[in-house]
């Protein structure tokens, strides 16, 4: 029984002298919804392209469902549904024809699967409409429908909610959650809309400049994003010493912009401010705040400027 749906070992992709992806070690367990986070050009799409076989890695290894060899990995790809960048569809064909082409290519028996995904994504009324007349959102829906054909064990979705309206985004989110719950489908999803990912993913991978900075579960993320006292002072070094010596806490961190996040004394703001000011440090700002995934990501990659 395989444990991982996707595992990459030191996966790298080089264009000229620059690494688009460098020594990427992804570990995506079966049944997880893995949120792949990174800013534009971080290497998310390149990594996904290598995993799906569209781009060849410069070095490193890709394992799908614990299969190692080239031929085994190619066979394992038959168990994957993919939506990359913009949906890959034939504009001169109708919705039905596009689904049929993909059904034939994957060798899925019977046409029931087409009816099923059309119903799931409410594409039935557009069944006989040519795709070239579709809006971006409709094309994206069709792309998702193609990825879902034949109930794949692993879904790889690169920016799937681009161009979708809020109602459809909610529908897609619920659909993906249902797939995981009912069929234990593993999902790798990348998105810029971090709030959306936070509501969906059970595990996160943060990539920056081609390198995987961190892999963490939702629980670990929640732990890291818990409520803290954010203090800005005129002398950060001195304040840190005060926290350690007078307040006896090491449960804090200093961010790039010199904000100190204290995870203790959440309910005792008065004591904290009193001790800091009585030791000759002026407080410029003091707020009690919990991090969002967005804040966490921004801090991890080194602030907004980065």
């Amino acid at each position, binding site marked *: 029984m395989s444990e991982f749906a996707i595992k990459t070992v030191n996966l790298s992709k080089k264009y000229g002298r620059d690494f688009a992806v460098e020594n990427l070690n992804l570990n995506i367990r079966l049944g997880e919804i893995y949120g792949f986070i990174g800013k534009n050009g971080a290497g998310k799409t390149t990594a996904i*392209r290598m995993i*799906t*076989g*569209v*781009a*060849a890695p410069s070095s490193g290894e890709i394992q799908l469902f614990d299969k190692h060899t080239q031929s085994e990995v*190619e*066979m*394992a*790809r*038959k*168990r*994957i549904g*993919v939506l*990359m*960048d*913009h*949906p*890959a*569809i*034939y*504009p*001169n*064909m109708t919705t039905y*024809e596009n689904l*049929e*082409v*993909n059904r*034939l*290519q*994957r*060798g899925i028996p019977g046409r029931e699967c087409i009816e099923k995904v059309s119903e799931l994504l409410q594409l039935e009324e557009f069944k006989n409409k040519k795709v070239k007349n579709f809006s971006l959102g409709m094309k994206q829906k069709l792309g998702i429908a*193609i990825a879902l054909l034949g109930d794949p064990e692993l879904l*790889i979705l690169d920016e799937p909610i681009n161009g979708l309206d809020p109602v459809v985004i909610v529908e897609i989110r619920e659909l993906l959650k249902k797939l995981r719950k009912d069929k234990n489908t593993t999902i790798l999803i990348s998105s810029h809309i971090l709030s959306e990912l936070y509501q969906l993913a059970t595990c996160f991978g943060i990539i920056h400049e081609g390198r995987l900075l961190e892999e963490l579960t939702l629980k670990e993320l929640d732990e890291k994003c818990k409520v803290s006292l954010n203090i800005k002072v005129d002398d950060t070094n001195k304040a840190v010493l005060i926290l350690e010596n007078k307040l006896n806490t090491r449960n804090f961190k200093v961010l790039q912009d010199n904000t100190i996040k204290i995870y203790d004394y959440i309910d005792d703001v008065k004591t904290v401010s009193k001790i800091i000011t009585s030791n000759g440090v002026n407080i410029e700002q003091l707020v009690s705040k919990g991090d969002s995934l967005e804040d966490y990501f921004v801090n991890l990659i080194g602030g907004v400027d980065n």
Partner: protein
Amino acid sequence: MYNLIRTEFYKLKRDKAYKNILMITGILILLCITLVVLKSGTICFIQLDNTYGFIINKFANRKNPTLMEILNSAKGFSVVLQILIMFFATSFVLNEYKYGTFRNLIAGGNTRMNIYISKLLAVSFGIFIMNLFMIFGSVLGGVVFCKPSGFLNYNTMLEMFKFILLSLLVFTAMASLYMCISIIVKNKSIVVAAGIIILFSEPLVLIMTNHTKWGDYLPTFLLMKICSINLDTRMIFNIILVCTIWIISTCAIGIYTFEKQDVR
């Protein structure tokens, strides 16, 4: 592989460029019959030493054409068919890049070699239908409108199938070359421009440099021979051998390039 071939045939059936090309073939059939009916003069696109070339509407007795002569006239339209095939083969490959649909095929766990070969098979089948349509359409049209002497007998049928199969081989060699260039260049305008240069410079260069013997190794020359000469067994064998080498070598280069490519 079986699934891929089915997919490619499904796409072929719905390919807009292919439908347009079949329509143009229909127009060529009409043109062929009209020229016979109007008793127009002979048209030669390329003719070498008065022995072979693309010759249309050549009749011993213009008032009473034979069915075989109408068939030969239809064969002369191969000069246009080879241009249509260039557009068809390039668009059939390059549209996959344009729409990003190669990604679906690769991500679906299909090997690139299988994808390439299934595409070539579909293109070849498309050419077969087009060729069949051109030849049978012209001959049947000729029977109906021109009332030629000599009915659709065994010899005519044999000649038709011999031409269809041999020209299919030559056209497939050409299509394979265009597919190979398409995979390397990935730009429709450049591929079509290169194709037209190859098509027209090939005879010109060989004639001007007096190296027409080399034509035995080039698809356009082989097509001219098929269109205008009664081929003996040695010539047929030569055509089969040369075209097979063209197909295998262009496929090998095309597949090698495709294997190394990052598809977008």
